[in-house]
């Protein structure tokens, strides 16, 4: 479980996040949603420690990340896996080397154990035959799947996904969403997904935090989201034409 308390972050005079608090539960995808520029990705980067908040706390199963010493921070980080928006694959390494990378650097596993784990993870994301391909030779959707395989290869306790569906077609998006949901449930890990894709929200949004102008204005799930009574959230949800037509039909 991850808990955040009063996360605040400014860049110069611009207040990007203001006193954001919340709890992200284990075993299901926790979605952070909101329009572009509302501070979702900054919040995620504050949670994983890539951007230090001006104030606020992040607890990883009770461990205060920003108050911890360097060794504890490293320990927490080695329990994390992250899927970046662009995949962030090492472009000079093959798919297999990318996925094996955390095991090479962070573990003392034998080569055969590593290969077994790498092949298991690649199979898990449906990329059994892509071991020797370079990142430049694979599609956007495949890159995301390799990113997921790399994120889970070291058996993380926390999985973070920054816009996992950006730039993907609807079918591939659904596959990626289902993969994230299955992995979260099977491995019983805390997963946080930043997205503005309504298909993802309705598909895997078991727990949703809506960020508006740097503030957490609503928390709920995909069943409640259409009748939250929060104007900003309604504007966001029903900006989608499909959602809007569903609402009109229901009305």
């Amino acid at each position, binding site marked *: 479980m991850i808990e955040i308390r009063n996360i605040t972050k400014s860049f110069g005079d611009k207040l990007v996040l203001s006193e954001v608090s919340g709890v992200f539960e284990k075993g299901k995808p926790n979605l952070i949603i909101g329009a572009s520029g509302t501070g979702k990705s900054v919040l995620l980067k504050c949670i994983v420690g*890539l951007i230090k908040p001006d104030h606020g706390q992040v607890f990883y199963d009770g461990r205060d990340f920003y108050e911890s010493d*360097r060794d504890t921070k490293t320990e927490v*980080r080695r329990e994390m896996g992250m899927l970046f928006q662009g995949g962030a*694959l090492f472009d000079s390494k093959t798919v297999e080397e990318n996925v094996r990378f955390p095991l090479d650097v962070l573990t003392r596993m034998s080569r055969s154990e590593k290969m077994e784990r790498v092949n298991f993870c690649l199979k898990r994301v449906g990329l059994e035959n892509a071991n020797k391909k370079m990142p430049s030779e694979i599609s956007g959707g495949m890159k995301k799947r390799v990113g997921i395989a790399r994120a889970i290869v*070291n058996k993380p306790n926390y999985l973070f996904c920054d816009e996992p569906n950006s730039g993907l077609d609807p079918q591939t998006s659904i596959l990626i969403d289902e993969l994230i949901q299955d992995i979260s449930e099977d491995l019983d890990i805390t997963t946080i997904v930043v997205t503005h894709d309504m298909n993802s929200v309705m598909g895997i949004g078991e727990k949703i935090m809506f960020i508006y102008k740097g503030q957490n204005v609503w928390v709920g799930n995909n069943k409640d989201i259409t009748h939250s009574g929060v104007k900003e959230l309604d504007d966001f949800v029903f900006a989608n034409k499909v959602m809007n037509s569903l609402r009109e039909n229901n009305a």
Partner: protein
Amino acid sequence: MHSFNASMIKEIGKYFIFLGNLFINRETFKTYYKLILDECLSIGLGSLFLVALVSTFMGAVTTVQTAYNMVSDFIPNYVISQVVREMIVLELAPTIIAVIYAGKVGSSMAGGLGTMRITEQIDALEVMGINSISYLVLPKIVASILMYPLLVIIAGVCGMLGGYLAGTLTGIITPNDYVYGLRSSYNEFTVIFALIKSVVFAFLVASISSYRGYYTQGGALEVGVSTTQAVTTSVIAVLIADYLLAQLLLAK
């Protein structure tokens, strides 16, 4: 002026913090060993042709120009190769090659790290709990310190060989005079001085270029800007260090 000084001091402070981060939270020796070997191959073999070519021509031109300036018949011909030796060993091989090294290796380091930064590859390392500065930059600096002195030695040999070819093929100097000049009044400290300079320059070029690349912000255009800044700053640092070392180690 005041804000320029403040930002300059801030930048220097950030550079030293960057250097301090090279040595904290390191990975295993085995991890670095492979990375250093890869960097050595890329830096050493990748620069060999350019260094040999430039230094050979530098030696040839120095020979011709020294001969052109020797107008008195009282000065023996072998002085030409003495001058060539001193110029190449003391200045041309370590310093001029350092400028070329900054252009080739420094820009490649800055460009590579800058691209890794903008494509979130450095963030990916950080999230894995890997100290990205230590993992990415330390092998580059160590490889640079190992390889650049070797390149300087090769540059020295090629420079003197270039001088020999230009001098003997054009009839400026006889082969015997050239070799005699190279060997007469030889002071081995000049070679030690050149090697000390090469270690310092290797460190400056690798660390400054890596620093510029590592802190790239923005997109592809900014990677280009970082690369240019890396070369400019490295060259300025090399020239300042060149003067300081000469003052410290050669001044009487």
